[in-house]
């Protein structure tokens, strides 16, 4: 899980008070646990359970994921540019393994 490729798109710079849109995509099978393989054996559930984003240490976005979310979940959310700092994106799966990505934003004005 820690090796799951993830991509983030967000502006590198913004003016203070601007609403910025952030897109996040991670590669993950999001196996529901309700499918069976060709032999009829149940394929065990394997999903990401939470996606949390902090901005300069403050949580700005939290999402609980469930088996209804498709594979390779694509999330778009917005937040307000408040200060220059680091955004930390953490995806945690059902076993507790996490993928973490970090992005810097420079806020002017």
């Amino acid at each position: 899980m820690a090796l799951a490729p993830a991509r983030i798109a967000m502006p590198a710079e913004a003016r203070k008070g601007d609403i910025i849109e952030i897109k996040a995509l991670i590669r993950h099978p999001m196996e529901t646990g309700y499918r069976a393989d060709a032999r009829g054996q149940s394929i065990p559930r394997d999903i990401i359970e939470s996606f949390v984003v902090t901005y300069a240490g403050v949580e700005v976005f939290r999402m609980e994921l469930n088996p209804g979310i498709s594979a390779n979940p694509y999330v778009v959310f917005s937040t307000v540019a408040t200060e220059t700092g680091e955004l930390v994106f953490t995806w945690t799966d059902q076993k507790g393994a996490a993928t973490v990505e970090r992005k810097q934003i420079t806020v002017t004005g």
Partner: protein
Amino acid sequence: MARERSECVSALSAAMLLLLAGWPGAPAQAEEPASAPTSGTSLLSPDLKAMQDDDFANPGMLWIGEGEKLWQAKSASGKDCASCHDDAAKSMKGVAARYPAVDTEAGKPVNLEQRINFCRTRHMGEQPFAYESGDLLSLTAYVAYQSRGLPMNVETGGAAAPFFERGKALFTMRQGQLNLACSQCHVDLAGRRLRGDIISHGVGVGYPVYRLEWQGLGSLHRRLRSCSFGVRAVQNDYGADDYVNLELYLAGRARGLPIDTPAIRK
């Protein structure tokens, strides 16, 4: 109302199957219609087309990101792809447009996946990647992506000619329990509906493709295996000669069409 409709649909499907099902072994019509083949991209809904065009949201890009890392992953011999091929954006540009191509050492055409594995075994002292493994898909997608937008331009004459003819014969040969040839749907009925889908020309310029049904990236051979399954024919193995010959024929048919990798399909 729903019952009437489903009965109507199944009667229609049965009628269509009866029409198409001919004597076993009889070759089907092979004439290409006046309209040249077009890529399946033209059949996508506006939402899916937007997703395919968005380099961020296109899930296939996740594999291409991995391919980029693999390009620089050092093998046991200390070599990586970049050792010989340097910057993929320059060296791999146009490569996917001319594959499958005849490999002189193997004496037959090989596709991009097989060529990458030859590089690993012949020049890097490595084991080949398993066909359809995440690593091979990522690297193939990365290489094909460098030719995105370029027109397909495979060599179908010379050494490739007998294999191209074999591919053409396979394309027009009735197969499987349903006794259908590729051309019956993908030439004669292209553009018409099959249940909820519109039948494409079966061109294959977007591969490896992110298929919603697979919820992941897959190769052309995976799709061809589905096609074989669809007519209840025996599925060939990944990398089978006949699938490569067919791939060569499809690539020849697609001449001039721009490469779409990584495409999104249903």
